[in-house]
């Protein structure tokens, strides 16, 4: 899509007239390219290389190549790693559908002809621009025993207890906090998507006697399919990377507290790769597995979307 519009421009005089374009272009691109080569490309390659080594930060000169050892250490007989993957999968499977449904519902409500839309929209976005640490700090208090959110959830049968101290509900706490922060962001994308659907479609449907649900099912949902795909895939990749909220509830102690009930792929990586610097090889291997999981999911989602069409 992008290259087509470019070709048109290349034909114009502005482009043709030049002789020093190559110099100018690379001069303007130089800061980006230099930073990218040093601070992205080089470490990216290094990450793969380190993942095949026994790499101790304090004795870097003694690193040695160990083949796939780090990968087998992670994947074979490593309940801690699988538990972390399990938690990550739960977060993704619960948070992504919730945030997508809420985002769509709020976007549809704000797409109506009502006054005061702007204020509602701002209120819904503000959690998204608040830091995860700050939001977690407030939620940790609101989810203490006898506090308002705890009491509200107690009506649904959850215990009236400090959520972040209870291993069985701490992960759910992280998910609720995370969804609260994300909904506004995806709502904006859905709103933009909704605005591209022509109103005439709905009018025609109404003339034909379609009710609200039929309109939703046969106009809104199909028209928003590309947007939904984007929201689900970006949302999945983002949810996989959740970190700040978990770091915040792990008071002083080990990431993933209480009792390792909120460990994820990223906290596993951070604990082993950054906190215990003698296991950097293992840390790199864990993020590479993470990268392949994320890429795999993106491909599968893309396939599913194409098949349905």
């Amino acid at each position: 899509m992008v290259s087509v519009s470019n070709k048109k421009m290349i034909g114009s005089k502005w482009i043709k007239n030049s002789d020093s374009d190559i110099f100018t272009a690379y001069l303007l691109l130089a800061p980006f390219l230099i930073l990218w080569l040093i601070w992205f490309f080089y470490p990216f390659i290094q990450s793969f290389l380190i993942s095949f080594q026994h790499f101790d930060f304090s004795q870097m000169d003694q690193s040695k190549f160990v083949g796939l050892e780090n990968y087998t250490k992670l994947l074979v007989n490593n309940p801690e790693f699988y538990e972390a993957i399990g938690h990550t999968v739960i977060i993704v499977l619960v948070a992504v559908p919730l945030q997508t449904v809420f985002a769509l519902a709020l976007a549809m409500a704000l797409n109506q002809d009502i006054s005061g839309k702007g204020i509602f929209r701002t209120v819904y976005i503000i959690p998204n621009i608040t830091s995860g640490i700050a939001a977690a700090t407030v939620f940790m208090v609101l989810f203490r025993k006898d506090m308002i959110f705890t009491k509200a959830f107690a009506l649904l049968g959850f215990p009236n207890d400090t959520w972040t101290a209870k291993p069985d509900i701490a992960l759910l706490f992280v998910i609720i906090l995370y969804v609260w922060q994300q909904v506004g962001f995806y709502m904006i994308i859905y709103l933009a998507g909704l605005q591209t659907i022509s109103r005439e479609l709905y009018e025609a449907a109404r003339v034909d006697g379609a009710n609200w649900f039929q309109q939703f099912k046969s106009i809104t949902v199909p028209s928003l399919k590309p947007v939904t795909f984007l929201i689900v895939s970006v949302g999945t990749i983002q949810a996989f990377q959740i970190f700040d909220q978990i770091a915040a509830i792990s008071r002083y102690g080990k990431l993933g507290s209480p009792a390792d009930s909120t460990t994820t792929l990223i906290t596993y990586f951070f604990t082993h790769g950054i906190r215990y610097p003698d296991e950097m090889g293992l840390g790199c291997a864990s993020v590479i597995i993470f990268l392949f999981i994320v890429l795999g999911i993106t491909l599968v989602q893309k396939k599913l979307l194409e098949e349905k069409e």
Partner: protein
Amino acid sequence: MSKTVKNSFLYTALTAFAIVFALPLFYALYTSLKDLKDVEKMVVGIDRLNFDSYIRLITHYQNAGGGIAVWYLNTIIMTGIIVAGCCIISSMAGFSLAKLNFPGKKIIFIIVLATMMIPYHMILIPVYIMMSKLGWLNTFAALTVPYLYQCLYIFLMKQFISTIPNELLEAARMDGMTKIGAFFRIILPLTKPALATTIIISFTGTWNSYLIPTTFVNKEKMYTLVQGLNAAKDQFFDRVNVTMAGVILTTIPVIIVFLIFQKYYIEGVASTGIKG
């Protein structure tokens, strides 16, 4: 369903959600102004509200070599450098990719797109090693240099500059302007909306970032606000009013900047969504 019934239903639902979304921050603000013995009370007289917990938080860390004022300054320096860098570097790169013709252009554009998709954790360990070899741990260099560009902003800039008609640039050429001159004098003033989007997205992202500072900085005097808040939250765990003062001090600047640039934030997010 009549229109009034429908609208009142809609307003009820929207308001209920608004309360859930706004309540935590209101709670933080309200609690931060209370005395510790009033924290549990739902309603306290306005005469009992004060700034004591703010003073307590600000003075507590003063002797430790850090302190809220230092963390504020650190955060402002870090965010300022990154936002400026992102604006300059991505507008230059975006212009090249949108309006110039040169070998390697396609590859560079693919690099931009591919880099956007790779989670940053992927390179965190090697970057940590590089930082420590350079002696950059616990310095502003570690917090800023690698993040002076972001591929998302280059992409946004390129998309935006592509929509500027070439006739404008041709006219500039006729007047004898160089391409670089045309970039600074013609293109840059026209990219204000895209620059505003870059500013607001990189400002909020950098101000709120936790992973990068917590990886490269562990000295209290180099903490950013978010890091400081996380430490203060653990230290003042039982003094909810003081912790909430920390939350308010950390989030207020972002909320103000967001309210100013809100329109560009929404447009930016929406356009990545639609075009992405």
